[in-house]
């Protein structure tokens, strides 16, 4: 299993997370609770696949061995994927889907806001473009958290359950990380040390409006996407997503 340099690994973390989140949104096609949500989910998904492609293209240039964005998306195994554990979790009901989306959007929003000021011009440019989209994603998912949390008795209960299901995977969003510290010390990216508290502040604010309780800080556990230690859900997701490229390796689409 190839491990790339820290910056490339970081780019893959961003690209893979966006792609896997989008893949889960695609699974909702034709199954959303309202037509407006069919459009909304596809719209967010489209933005995310576009972002994934931008991060992959930069990563591929750095890898520089003929790899391109599609190779990265469709020809790596689960042990090489660097996406957040959160985004690979199954969709569950609309409350689980929206909770995952909201946690991810809030993380992306603060992360991209910081990366927009990166010394690396390529990162700064992709972050600036993505941030415009993610600002909209966060507004949309925050509003849904509020509607569902402070809607009916049933929707409130479903939201509490969804938070319970998903919360343990948020440790990755708030963990201090040596690799990223090294990247910021070498000047590639800005310091991300404030990301956890900013993320938590957004969660607190939206949960208060949604009459939801923020659980205690999640424990770090044995899995970590940084080392390609995923939950069992990623393998089947990739089997579906990559099937054509794997079955017809010589084909051009």
């Amino acid at each position, binding site marked *: 299993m190839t491990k790339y340099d820290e910056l490339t690994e970081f780019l893959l973390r961003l690209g893979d997370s966006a792609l896997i989140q*989008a*893949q889960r949104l*695609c*699974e909702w*096609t*034709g*199954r*959303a*609770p*309202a*037509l*407006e*949500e*069919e*459009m909304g989910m*596809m*719209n967010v*998904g*489209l933005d995310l*696949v*576009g972002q*994934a*492609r931008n991060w*992959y293209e930069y990563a591929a240039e750095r890898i520089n061995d003929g790899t391109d*964005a*599609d190779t990265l*998306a*469709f020809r790596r195994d689960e042990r090489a994927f660097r996406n957040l554990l959160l985004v690979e979790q199954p969709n569950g*009901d*609309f409350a689980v889907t929206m909770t995952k989306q909201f946690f991810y959007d809030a993380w992306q929003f603060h992360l991209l806001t910081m990366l927009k000021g990166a010394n690396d011009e390529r990162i700064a440019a992709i972050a600036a473009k993505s941030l415009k989209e993610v600002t909209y994603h966060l507004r949309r998912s925050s509003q849904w958290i*509020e*509607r*569902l949390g*402070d*809607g*009916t008795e*049933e*929707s409130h209960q*479903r939201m509490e359950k969804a938070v319970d299901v998903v919360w343990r995977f948020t440790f990755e969003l708030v963990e201090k990380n040596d690799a990223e510290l090294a990247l910021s010390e070498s000047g590639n990216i800005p310091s991300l040390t404030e990301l956890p508290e900013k993320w938590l502040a957004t969660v607190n604010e939206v949960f208060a409006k949604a009459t939801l309780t923020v659980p205690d800080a999640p424990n770090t556990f044995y899995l970590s996407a940084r080392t390609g230690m995923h939950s069992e859900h990623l393998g089947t997701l990739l089997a*579906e*997503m990559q*099937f*054509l*490229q794997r079955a*017809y390796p*010589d*084909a*051009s*689409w």
Partner: protein
Amino acid sequence: MYAQQVETGTKTVKSLAEMGPEEKAFQEKIDAEIKIEAKNWMPDSYRKTLIRQISQHAHSEIVGMLPEGNWVTRAPTLKRKLQLMAKIQDEAGHGLYLYSAMETLGADRDEEIEKLHSGRAKYSSIFNYPTLNWADMGAVGWLVDGAAIVNQVPLQRTSYGPYSRAMIRVCKEESFHQRQGYEILLHMMRHGIQAQKDMVQDAINRLWWPSLMMFGPSDAESPNSAQSLAWKIKRHTNDELRQRFIDQTIPQLELLGCTVPDPDLKWNEERGHYDFGEIQWEEFYEVLKGNGPCNRERLETRRNAIQDGAWVREAAVAHANKKQKQQAAA
């Protein structure tokens, strides 16, 4: 996508002399190509026919997301995935325009959707066929959207203003989908390996006849057409449009280097059109009755979506009410 067989409730078309004053004025307006708008007087049967047609059209957009949704998680490249996602998003948007146009006639979208789910309203028969390989995503774009466009281009001039304006917007996006679909197939034929070329031919073999059926029954079997034509809801007969579609599609098929599964297809110099074989009308009517390959799955998926999403919609309403009360109190 569009409506395929719409009941008008009238088997014979009245002459101007047989009409009352209001109806006569209405028909003269139609004949003068003046658009009918929501607040204008219209015969009850015109209103009902349009509600049936536009809702059927809207339902087709929504059910039509499912055969493509079947491949969106398996699209082979990021570019193809983006294209397919954008297309599905457009289709949801078309459904929304069309339901809005339908509501100008006094119909209620939830009621019409309930008719679809209980099997009382139709949607295009084509979406009852399964998508079995990636080339189907190209063939659906090229043939299915292609057939829809042939039907919809004249509908831009349909007599009811809101429907006509919806068609103008929808047609622009549909043409784009059709070109994209064709490009998927062309790429597979020109740059693909044998397995991909086989996929393309297989997709055409399966979707060719169902695409021709999208134009509805033959003119001889379309008792409702005369009234729809007199009202200028329809602008051409089913057979005219089917012929137009075949004539413009065969050269595209030849450019691909593929064939159609019709041994009787032949250019007719004298008519200046392609002759083609007999459509399996029995299959067509069975599919319309609900006995096609995927009718059951398609409706189940849509019913489940609405049932499973009920609590979400209820929460949205409850929350909006709370907000409104808070604002009123403030």
